[in-house]
């Protein structure tokens, strides 16, 4: 029990994932700044942001709407992200072997932050938040099928194995899945799904600053918004880690391989950052078409290639 609590709260759960995520968020902001001829924030800026919101800023509740649900939603998002995080990170760090079918559990847990944002935004009774919530809903509906196909592709590649640990082991004994045509296709599909799950440009229409002024988060302030930031930091680490576990050999934590593991995470985040800095925001209708038609098509092609052994 104590060990499980340690896993959840410290390593590889809340504290560890959030810290790494915060540094990755700094990396993302720094790269963005360099691309845009700016200087960028100092290394500890994400921590300053978080603690300022948590400890200094006042939490203002919307006058209309439901305060309990409004405040519960950020807590729920942190729990969802952390739980998904430990299911991903425990096998990845070779601590436990997980269980058969844990991939599906991870799949469901990863949707909890998005759903809690929707619940929170609708509980705030703000018309702009409602627009943001409806956009987030449409976005989830469009990318979830693609994300499921992506996971299914990895499962097929591994010989119908539903266990994350086995998938990592299979790759480490053989070769990483990304080293084949179908693997590359799956990687592209996975990157775009992660981009949408993190609500980064071009898929940031639920937040869309210039249209609906941060949409789903418009009413959040103070500690509640700090928790949302925390959930976002965690997601920024565990989603790239999930992609690395599924396609890129996972982590080997010995000697020079530790450096490799860090580089892999940074590389995936770099790809996400570059995509978000070289594209405008697309419309929600275009996002739905993009996933339902093009990304699904790409995923199905990958599945067919896998079936033929490519």
């Amino acid at each position, binding site marked *: 029990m104590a060990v499980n609590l340690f896993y959840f709260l410290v390593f590889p759960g809340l504290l560890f994932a959030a810290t790494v995520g915060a540094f990755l968020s700094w990396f993302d902001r720094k790269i963005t700044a360099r691309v845009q*001829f700016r200087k960028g924030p100092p290394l500890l800026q994400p921590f300053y942001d978080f603690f300022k919101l948590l400890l200094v800023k006042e939490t203002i509740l919307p006058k209309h709407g439901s305060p309990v649900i409004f405040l519960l939603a950020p807590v729920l998002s942190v729990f969802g992200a952390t739980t998904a995080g430990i299911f991903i990170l425990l096998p990845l760090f070779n601590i436990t072997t997980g269980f058969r079918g844990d991939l599906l559990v991870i799949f469901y847990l990863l949707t909890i932050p998005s759903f809690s944002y929707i619940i929170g935004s609708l509980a705030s009774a703000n018309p702009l938040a409602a627009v943001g919530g409806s956009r987030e809903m449409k976005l989830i509906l469009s990318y979830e099928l693609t994300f499921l196909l992506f996971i299914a592709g990895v499962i097929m590649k591994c010989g119908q194995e539903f266990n994350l640990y086995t998938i990592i082991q299979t790759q480490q004994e053989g070769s990483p899945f990304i080293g084949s045509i179908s693997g590359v296709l799956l990687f592209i599909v996975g990157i775009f799904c992660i981009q949408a799950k993190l609500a980064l440009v071009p898929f940031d229409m639920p937040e869309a600053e*210039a249209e609906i002024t941060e949409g789903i988060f418009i009413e959040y302030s103070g500690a509640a918004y700090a928790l949302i930031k925390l959930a976002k930091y965690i997601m920024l680490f565990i989603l790239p880690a999930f992609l690395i576990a599924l396609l890129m050999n996972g982590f080997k934590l010995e000697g020079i391989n530790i450096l490799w593991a860090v580089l892999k995470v940074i590389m995936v985040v770099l790809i996400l950052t570059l995509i978000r*800095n070289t594209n*405008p925001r697309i419309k929600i209708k275009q996002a739905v078409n993009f996933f339902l038609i093009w990304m699904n098509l790409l995923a199905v092609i990958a599945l067919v290639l896998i079936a033929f052994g490519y």
Partner: protein
Amino acid sequence: MSKKTIIPIGPYHPLQEEPELFKLYCDGEIVKDIKWETGYNHRSIEKLSESKTYDQVFFLVERICGICSTSHPFAFANAVEEIGNIEITDRAKYIRSIIGELERIHSHLLWVGLAGHFLGYNTVFMWAWKYREPVLDLFEMITGNRNSYAMFKVGGVRRDIENVKISIIRKTLSDIRKKTDLLAGAVMDDPVIHARTKGVGILTRQDVIDYAAVGPTARASGVAIDVRKDDPYAAYPLVNWKVITAQAGDVFAKAEVRLLEMYESISIIEQCLNGLEKVKEGEITVKVKEIPEGIGTGRAEAPRGEVFHFVVSDGSNSPARHKIRAPSYVNIATFKKSCIGQTIADATISLAAVDPCYCCTERMAVAYDINSGKRIMNANELIDCSIMRTAEMKKNLINN
């Protein structure tokens, strides 16, 4: 009729840098109707102008708009010079045109950046504003100010562009042309930008004529209206240039017109610099003794469209009546055509596409309560109230 949600854009909203309120009446994501309110920023410029001398009014009208701060002095100078029948020197004409066109370049670059920001493309935002910086440096070199240049006066300009500065301006302009090439390439060839802006917020030729839209908003719909050609002033008849138009009328066409106009502006400035070298240095003003009684109208093509100033002179040293119409005043009305039926995402970029400038557009509004018919206080009355309150407070403090 289904229930509609009001999506407010304003009074303070990241989409617009100034206070204004657009109410989008939405059914789901579709905008069914739009209403707007301005009047948050009324400064009674026209009334103030009647209490200033002609020389002072230039500084006043320059502060109507921070971005196109030369277009208002330009139009006012045209109006006053029409009353006095004043013919300015060629050198002053060239300098006026150079300032006007430099301003167009920096204003269009600013719009391209903002449009990028509204689309969530912050890289374009930052790049465009970085490339705008050399233009502001040029302004600082020529006039001493990055903005609000204080260059115009009745009968000419206040400062000369010395011939030694011409080569520096030429060099900076060629740099700006290269940067514009890069930016235009990035914007015009990006398929995602095409997907976001093509076919969005379309104004047909007829809409533009019906709503009397001006400037790039009209030119993007194929209406070749440009005061610089239609009612030539300053050095524009002395140089070669063409009016840029596009046919589609959508947001992309408006961006295209603005980007191509920047090249025209650069070419106009280069020709004006050639002209400057031919005329004698230092002849920048003609002496104006007095403004006779009369009526004058002045027009100038601001980056956003036609600026119109109407001045009545009673022979004294200040205008008896001064009326201003800025381009956004007519362009904002086209939102009825361009936004209704679009999604919120499209409507917001359509709002931004006319590059509206609200402080130019402000009119005083008197509001009445619908139910009681009672007059609701306007800003001036509120200020009077606050002055009265301060006086009362002071009196109380002294008495105690």
